[in-house]
């Protein structure tokens, strides 16, 4: 295989070469192939992205580089070379040295990578001591490393324990540790996946800056195509343990040559796509299970372009010139892949003129936290029309989930506010609400593993909801169960299964069926797709849109993914420290002029098709809700702060134009002028 980076740098050895690498896991007494003949090369100083859905072998590839596979994993063929040295031939001591000096890894969950009972300073210093630097010198190097990853208050951080740092700071420390011994190869395995978009943007910036300062090559693994496209020079797409496409990031994402890449890109709501502009495309079928015998093309079963030749004959990696590779017999036709999902959609507009189905007036929630009042939700008022979707956005800790729980009655709001459902005031707690009111408002939780009782069968889970919420029994229940199961696109055979026997997407369908059992008026969707792969996410979003069109239900949709929120929502509420900072029709909020916080949130989203020019960065973390900043709560991080007024006076939520409210001291026309310049680029991918 030729490697453009090698030719470009003129160096003799690549930073990393995988040659025909095959890895298997031993499960149930049988070796099951996870990586199949993967060959790739990463040049010196190059950043290489590896993308693909969960279960395609990305992390296994990373772990096998330093032979760090789990106990039941083994390399069954091929070769790995770091700096031209064959890793397979290293003895235990040499392997230890390679892991300590040459290759560093950063994992998804920094909380697990750091020892919870040792201070940050000690953990970092230890690395230098291992490298032979002692005493004060090691400590100074540790401090310098923290400064290098631009952590705020590095001296203070040295004295702290991991749990005293936020997720973003922990990841900075993990990166500092990884860079401590100046590795020539840095492996980043989903380094920003658990982080908020604003924090993710900061960490990605840091990695990009460090790349310029250091000579390290990077293997960047992510399921997020946009992140990879911003960070990497070249990208490889893995499918079922096989490299199916490779090329420069720009080429692969703009001009994909494998149907899988084409399909993956189509699953994402991009360029401000909305539900009334057509369904998202999905990928039918499933990834072959690990160890499945594959004859022909692994993707053939899910590919509308596949013919007999594809099913019979494993396509080689066709070289398409310019270092581009595609494992498809019909790579020239890949982009003509027909849609798996018809895009036609008929969505009735929400009945905004009608009486609102839900009205929230001056709702507050205060928790007592170590003697301080924690205002989780402050003075929130809004309306929801029948058939309308309200998107709730904001960083973690902004009060989105608490607000949803208040509405549902799982948490009682403070006295004084009022929640009205179809004209009737709701009791603060569930116990005080009538059966009709309870069934009218249901929720799809973020994590189906927690939301579906693992001891019950799918039939019981949905049947019980029908019995309690719809009051059905006997024959009528069976009929409705059948109907409901079909409407969420599950089949009869799933009914006997327990939740753990289903995939994440199927489990979420069960949760959706359950929420719809009593013909609800409002369904709260709390990050329903955050744990799912993009193709499954697309299917779930389509399902939610279809159900809305059919049932005229209103959604309150919570998500950190702004592309997803934009796709589904008619109306957006932006929350910060429990306050509504901006509220308005989806189009207005996204296209602006918007609140400076909204502007920053939008700007933080990594985009597939945009350069990183006009980014706005938020400094630091969201302040504690027990001690919110005086004046405007956003002033400590606001890039458009105008002066003393922001620090002394909380701005009111004022109407910028009909239906669009903004809580900012900057007058609307002025915001429009300030943001005019950047507005063109703030389209989310």
């Amino acid at each position, binding site marked *: 295989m030729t490697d453009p980076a090698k030719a470009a740098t003129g160096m003799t050895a690549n930073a990393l070469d995988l040659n025909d690498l095959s890895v298997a896991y031993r499960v149930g007494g049988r070796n099951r192939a996870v990586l199949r003949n993967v060959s790739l090369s990463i040049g010196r100083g190059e950043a290489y992205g590896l993308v693909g859905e969960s279960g395609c072998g990305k992390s296994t590839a990373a772990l096998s580089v330093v032979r760090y596979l789990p106990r039941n994993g083994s390399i069954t063929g091929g070769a790995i070379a770091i700096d031209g040295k064959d890793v397979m031939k290293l003895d235990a001591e040499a392997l230890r040295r390679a892991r300590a000096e040459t290759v560093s890894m950063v994992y998804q969950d920094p909380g697990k990578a750091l020892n919870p009972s040792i201070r940050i300073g000690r953990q970092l210093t230890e690395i230098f001591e291992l490298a032979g630097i002692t005493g004060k010198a090691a400590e100074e190097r540790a401090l310098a490393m923290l400064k290098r990853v631009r952590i705020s208050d590095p001296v203070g951080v040295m004295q702290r324990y991991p749990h005293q740092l936020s997720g973003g700071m922990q990841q900075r420390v993990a990166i500092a540790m990884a860079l401590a011994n100046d590795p020539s190869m840095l492996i980043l395995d989903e380094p920003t996946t658990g982080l908020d978009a604003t924090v993710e943007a900061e960490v990605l910036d840091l990695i990009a800056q460090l790349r310029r300062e250091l000579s390290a090559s990077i293997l960047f693994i992510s399921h997020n195509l946009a992140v990879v496209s911003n960070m990497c020079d070249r990208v490889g797409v893995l499918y079922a343990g096989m490299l199916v496409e490779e090329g420069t990031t720009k080429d692969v994402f703009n001009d994909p040559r494998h149907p899988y890449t084409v399909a993956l890109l189509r699953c994402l709501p991009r360029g401000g796509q909305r539900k009334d502009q057509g369904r998202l495309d999905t990928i039918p079928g499933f990834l072959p299970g690990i160890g499945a015998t594959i004859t022909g093309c692994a993707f053939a079963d899910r590919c509308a372009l596949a013919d007999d030749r594809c099913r019979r004959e494993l396509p080689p990696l066709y070289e398409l010139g310019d270092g581009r590779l595609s494992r498809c017999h019909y790579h020239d036709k890949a982009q003509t892949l027909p849609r798996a999902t018809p895009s036609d959609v008929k969505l009735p507009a929400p009945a905004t003129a009608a009486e609102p189905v839900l009205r929230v007036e001056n709702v507050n929630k205060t928790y007592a936290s170590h003697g301080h009042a924690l205002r989780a939700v402050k003075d929130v008022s809004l309306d929801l029309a029948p058939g309308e979707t309200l998107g709730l956005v904001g960083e973690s800790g902004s009060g989105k989930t608490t607000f949803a729980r208040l509405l549902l009655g799982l948490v009682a709001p403070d006295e004084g506010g009022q929640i009205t459902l179809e004209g009737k005031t709701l009791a603060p707690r569930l116990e005080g609400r009538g059966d009709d009111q309870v069934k009218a408002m249901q929720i799809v939780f973020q994590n189906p593993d927690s939301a579906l009782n693992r001891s019950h069968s799918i039939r019981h889970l949905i049947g019980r909801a029908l019995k309690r919420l719809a009051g059905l029994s006997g024959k009528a229940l069976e009929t409705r169960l059948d109907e409901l199961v079909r409407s969420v696109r599950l089949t009869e055979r799933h009914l006997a299964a*327990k939740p753990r026997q289903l995939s994440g997407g*199927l489990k979420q369908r069960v949760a959706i069926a359950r929420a719809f059992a009593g013909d609800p008026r409002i369904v709260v969707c709390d990050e329903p797709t955050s744990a799912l792969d993009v193709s499954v996410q697309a299917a779930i979003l389509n399902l939610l849109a279809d159900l809305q069109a059919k049932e005229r239900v209103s959604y309150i949709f919570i998500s950190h993914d702004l592309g997803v929120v934009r796709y589904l929502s008619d109306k957006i509420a932006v929350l910060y420290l429990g306050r509504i900072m901006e509220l308005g029709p989806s189009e207005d909020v996204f296209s602006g002029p918007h609140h400076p916080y909204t502007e920053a949130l939008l700007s933080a989203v990594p985009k597939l098709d945009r350069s990183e020019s006009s980014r706005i960065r938020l400094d630091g973390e969201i302040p504690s809700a027990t001690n919110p900043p005086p004046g405007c709560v956003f002033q400590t991080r606001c890039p458009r702060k105008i002066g003393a007024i922001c620090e002394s006076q909380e701005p009111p939520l004022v109407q910028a134009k009909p239906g669009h409210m903004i809580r900012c001291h900057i007058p609307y026309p002025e915001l429009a002028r300030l943001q005019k310049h950047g507005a063109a680029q703030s389209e989310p991918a």
Partner: protein
Amino acid sequence: MSATDTTTQERPIGRRGPYAELFFALMRSGTFLTGFAIVLFWVICALFGEHFTPYDPLADDIINALSPPSAEHWFGTDQIGRDVFSRVIVGSRDILTVAPLATLLATVAGTALGLFTGYFRGIADDIVSRVLEAFMAIPVVIVALLAIVALGTSKATVIVVIGLSFAPIIARTVRSAVLAERELDYVAAAQLRHESAFHTMFVEILPNVIPPILVETTVRLGYAIFAVATLSFMGFGIQPPSPDWGLSISNNYGMIGGGFWWTVLFDALAIASLVIGVNLVTDGIQGALND
């Protein structure tokens, strides 16, 4: 619409249920199988022992009193000439009735209390938990003494005494498991169906806390066997003329000084083997659940 989603059509539904998985894991566990074999041996002795003992365990034979182990009397004879081997075999019966029933009572009462305190939390939990802790501070023997004074000696008394003294310990385990389950969203989902507290506790939460209950129950069974033997030894438990192990040791331990060790040793070994057997079963289950 049908084309929208073939994603739901094909995924094979594999993987066994959790209990089938536990069963297969146990069948691979040497620890469990060893313990199970020991316990099974004593259960068979308890059920059918009288049919295969060489002598009637209650029949005295003064002429052959205190004869050492021999081909005729494998484990020797006691003070009044009863065959020790036959007595050890049949002696398993009372302890294997009383200890499991006491454990069952402790499990049922403890699970109910644990579900109640863990589910309702707050003030109800505080009051009940403090009472249970106070109860746990009283030694079993004292409770047994009081109960026997009040109720008279009988197997039922022993069962109730041990059952109720172990219940708070099981309640504590169940409570902590329930507290963790309570935080899961399926409990909120049940509330959003206006389910009764009873339904939520027993139909939603209980099946998910069975594994820790199972482990705690087998641990308690080991302790219960020990407790029954102790009470019998002290005279508060199983009463003569039963060939019960603890009782036999109590009747004969004065003879050790005279060199008649066989009157005590085999009963002691029997108690030890049963407790060890139960503990091996416990370890096996715990190991299988943690895998």
